[in-house]
């Protein structure tokens, strides 16, 4: 399955929920991240129940201070 994560193509071996993707992508400070899926900001309560599908576009967004960055992944 292929996703677009923060504008870059990412290949996954299996289907993941948003919560699982946060772990898979080593997202920093996951308690602070906002997740936009195909243009819609998800409620935090949806992270564990939202399964990602082939071609989905996911953005990890932060508005916690400093700059106006979007990329909290380490890879």
């Amino acid at each position, binding site marked *: 399955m292929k996703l677009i994560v923060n504008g870059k193509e990412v290949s996954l071996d299996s289907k993941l929920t948003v919560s699982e993707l946060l772990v898979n992508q080593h997202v*920093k*400070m996951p*308690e*602070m*991240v*906002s997740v*936009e899926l195909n*243009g819609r*900001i998800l*409620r*935090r*309560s949806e992270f564990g129940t939202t399964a990602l599908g082939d071609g989905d576009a996911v*953005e990890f*967004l*932060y*508005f*916690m*201070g*400093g*700059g*106006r*960055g*979007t*990329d*909290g992944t380490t890879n």
Partner: protein
Amino acid sequence: MRPETAAIHAGFVSADRSGASAVPIHQTVSYAYPTAEEIAAVFEGRAPGYIYTRIANPTTSALEATLTDLEGGIGSIATASGMAAIASVAMGLVRAGDEIIASAGIFGGTVSFFENVLGRFGVRTRLVDAGDTDTFGRAVNERSRLIFIETIGNPRMDVPDIRAIAEIAHRANIPLVVDSTVTTPVLIRPGEFGADLVVHSTSKFINGHGTAIGGAIIDTGNYDWSRGPFPDIEQLSKSLGRLAFLSHLRNLICRDLGGCPAPMNSFLMLQGLETLSLRMAKHCANAESLTRFLSDHSEVSRVSFPGLPDSPWFERARRQFGGRAGALLTFSLGSKERAFRFIAALRLAKNLANLGDAKTLVIHPSSTIYHEFGPAEQQQMGIEADMIRVSVGIEDFDDIQKDFQQAIEQSSRI
């Protein structure tokens, strides 16, 4: 998670590994990084992280996460006070020459900020009658940048039609800002009625005990910041989508105005949230009982409470607030002099400028909160010279009733 559960658990996402069962109070000004590269990455927004408590703080983040969940929003920013929340939202949206449309019956401090502070910077505020929804539409022009209402006007006790006013705002392509301080997320999620931004004075029912000043801004996710008359926010929306306005606040407006909450106060708000639904049920029940007592009392000339069946706001309040009407009411004993004697005779209820405390509170608005407004302005804002405002507490109702009964009796003696 149901709201009662979310109020207790939603914010507890701290990375703290001590096993602490309460959200830790991060009583720190700043945050250290091992390398210059790492702190630079956070400053530049290439990596998430805390920098300085004026911008963000882990205890405050837990409060923000809880409020976001309770309001069903996409994100929140906690502030030093309710006025700091309102000031930040307004200053984030307007420039010199712009206009604000606000209902006339809102908190005097908000009117003063709009007219006396923003007025100094060339921003005009048009006050309209919240009871006449069409007046909002008539006040809109190409300079309008936001509509501001309260869920229940304090102390006018009027209840605007949030959904209809949201439609007017959206037809004008501007956001609707709703102050839900007196209703809290327990009675209404304004976002479900179309509101774009929700503000709270968390010092009131959310804190619940009169122990800390605070405020909050929640973006409901309803407004598309890429299409509004706000070029700088539109620019941010290209990378941050609907989080653009919160980023604009966090990284410019709130950061530079400096109205951040103290971590200890954020902790006290989190503690208040845990019991908010229980307290609101008791506040509202006591307010209904007190309203019935006052309405039936021969010495009381007027009672204003949206939960009264003969209130012009009764049906709308029922529809918007799930059958409850809050815990704020006003009443009159016929004259300012009797109001003063009544307040002096109270033994249990306290005479002070606050609301939403566990204790029953009273105040004479005309001579206190609104003393700087002239008679004509007070009339426009719904302030009568004989009006007493009550914030009904969560004491046993019989004790509240006895206190009001004896104080009304004493107020009739000269």
